[in-house]
C-alpha cells in the first residue's frame, strides 16, 4: 500500500471516531433539552402566582419599599452572568459574556461601576484570565440548576443591594441570561432585577388577565409591608431560578446545534477523504499496470531484438 493511501485511511479513521463522539453528544443534548424544558414549564405556576401576589401587594400596599424605589444617583450595580460550565456549546457562553461587556460599557457610561456575580466556569475563566474582580462565582451545576443555587446568588445580591453603595453595596441588579424561545431560537437577554419596575409587571399582568378581573382588595396578614418584605426576596430568587432554567435549556439547545454541525462536517470530511483515498488507490493501480506493461514491453522488445 502506498504512503499516500495510508495517510488518507488513517485520517478517515480518526474523523470517524470524532464523529461518533459528536453524534453521541448531540443525542444526549437533545434528550436533555426536553427535560430542561419540562423543568421550565414546571416552574411556571409558581412564577405566575408570585407575580400576581406581588403586583397586588404593591398596588394595594405602600410602594415605598426599598426594593421597589430606584436610587436617584446609582453608583454601583451588580451584574449576574449565566454561562455554561462546559464548552462545546457553540456561542452560548461567549454570547452572554459579550452581552455582559456591552452592559458594562453602558453602565460605565451612566457613571455606574459594575460588580460581577458569575455563574458557570466559562465566564469565571474569562474574568480570571483578564484579572478582573469577581464578587461571587458559582460553578458546577449549570446544566441542572436547583432552587438552592438560585437562592445562593439571590441572597448574595440582595445583601449587596440592601447595603449602602458607600460600603460595597449596589443600587441596581442586572442579570444576563439566554432566553429559550424554542428548539431553534434562543436569545441573550438583559433584565433588571432590582429595583423592580413595578409598572411593567402590573401592566404585563393586566394584559394576561381577562378584562374585568380587577385586582381584588386584599387583606394583608400580618401587614402589607411584612408581606412585601417576604415576597420581594422570593421574587428575586425566582427570577434568577427561572433564568437559570431557561439558560440550561438554551445551553443544551446550543450544544445540540454545535454538535450537529460538527457531525455534519465530519460526514463531509469523510466523504471528501474517501474520494481522495480512492483516487490514490486508483492511481497506484494504474501505475502498477503501466509498470508491468512497460516491463513486459521492454522484455519482449529485448527478446525480439536478439
Amino acid at each position, binding site marked *: 500500500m502506498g504512503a499516500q493511501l495510508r495517510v488518507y485511511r488513517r485520517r478517515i479513521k480518526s474523523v470517524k471516531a470524532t464523529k461518533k463522539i459528536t453524534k453521541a453528544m448531540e443525542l444526549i443534548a437533545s434528550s436533555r433539552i426536553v427535560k430542561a424544558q419540562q423543568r421550565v414549564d414546571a416552574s411556571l405556576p409558581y412564577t405566575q402566582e408570585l407575580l400576581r401576589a406581588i403586583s397586588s401587594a404593591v398596588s394595594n400596599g405602600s410602594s415605598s419599599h426599598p426594593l421597589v424605589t430606584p436610587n436617584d444617583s446609582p453608583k454601583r450595580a451588580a451584574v449576574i452572568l449565566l454561562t455554561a460550565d462546559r464548552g462545546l456549546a457553540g456561542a452560548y457562553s461567549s454570547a452572554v459574556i459579550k452581552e455582559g461587556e456591552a452592559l458594562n460599557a453602558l453602565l460605565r457610561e451612566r457613571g455606574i461601576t459594575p460588580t460581577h456575580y458569575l455563574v458557570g466556569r466559562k465566564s469565571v475563566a474569562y474574568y480570571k484570565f483578564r484579572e478582573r474582580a469577581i464578587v461571587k462565582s458559582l460553578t458546577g451545576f449549570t446544566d441542572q440548576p436547583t432552587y438552592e443555587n438560585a437562592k445562593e446568588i439571590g441572597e448574595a445580591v440582595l445583601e449587596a443591594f440592601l447595603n449602602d453603595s458607600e460600603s460595597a453595596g449596589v443600587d441596581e441588579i442586572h442579570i444576563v441570561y439566554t432566553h429559550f424561545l424554542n428548539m431553534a431560537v434562543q436569545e441573550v437577554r438583559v433584565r433588571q432585577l432590582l429595583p423592580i419596575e413595578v409598572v411593567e409587571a402590573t401592566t404585563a399582568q393586566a394584559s394576561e388577565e381577562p378584562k374585568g378581573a380587577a385586582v*381584588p382588595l386584599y387583606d394583608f396578614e400580618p401587614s402589607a409591608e411584612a408581606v412585601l418584605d417576604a415576597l420581594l426576596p422570593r421574587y428575586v430568587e425566582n427570577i434568577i431560578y427561572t433564568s437559570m432554567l431557561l439558560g440550561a435549556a438554551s445551553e443544551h439547545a446550543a450544544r445540540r446545534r454545535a454538535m450537529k454541525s460538527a457531525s455534519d462536517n465530519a460526514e463531509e470530511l469523510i466523504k471528501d477523504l474517501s474520494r481522495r483515498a480512492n483516487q490514490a488507490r486508483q492511481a497506484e493501480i494504474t501505475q502498477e499496470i503501466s509498470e508491468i506493461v512497460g516491463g513486459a514491453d521492454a522484455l519482449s522488445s529485448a527478446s525480439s531484438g536478439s
Partner: protein
Amino acid sequence: MTELTVSVVAVDRNVWSGPAKALVAKTPEGEIGILAGHEPVLSLLVNGVVRITAVDGSKVYVAVHGGFLAVDNNNVRVLAEVAELAGDIDVSRAQRALENASASGVDSAERLAAIHRAETRIQAATAATAVTLHN
C-alpha cells in the same frame, strides 16, 4: 354550594390542585381557616401543615416550609419554596434528620431550621396516618 379552587404550588412543581371545601393553614399570627366566600387575603405562612378538606370529605395534608397564601374569588393558592404531600414524606428519614439536627450541639439558625423542617414533615405524616386509622 360554592367550593374553593385550591392549588398548592412549590417552586419547581405543582404539588396539589383541585376543588375543596375548606383549608387550614398556619400564619405568623396563628391558624387561618378558609371556606368558600372568604374575603381576599394575602398572608405569609410559617412552616407548618396545610390541611385541605377535599370536596368528597377526604383530607389532604401538605407540609409547607415558608411561603404565602393568596385567596380571592374562592381561589386559594398556597405558594411555598418547599411543599410536600404527607404521602410523599419519608417519616423515618425525617425522624433521622430530626435526631441528627437535635444531636449536633451548636445552636445555629440552620440547625433550628432543620429541626423545624423535620418536625413539620413528621407532623404532616402523622396527621395523615391518624386520619387513615380513624377511617
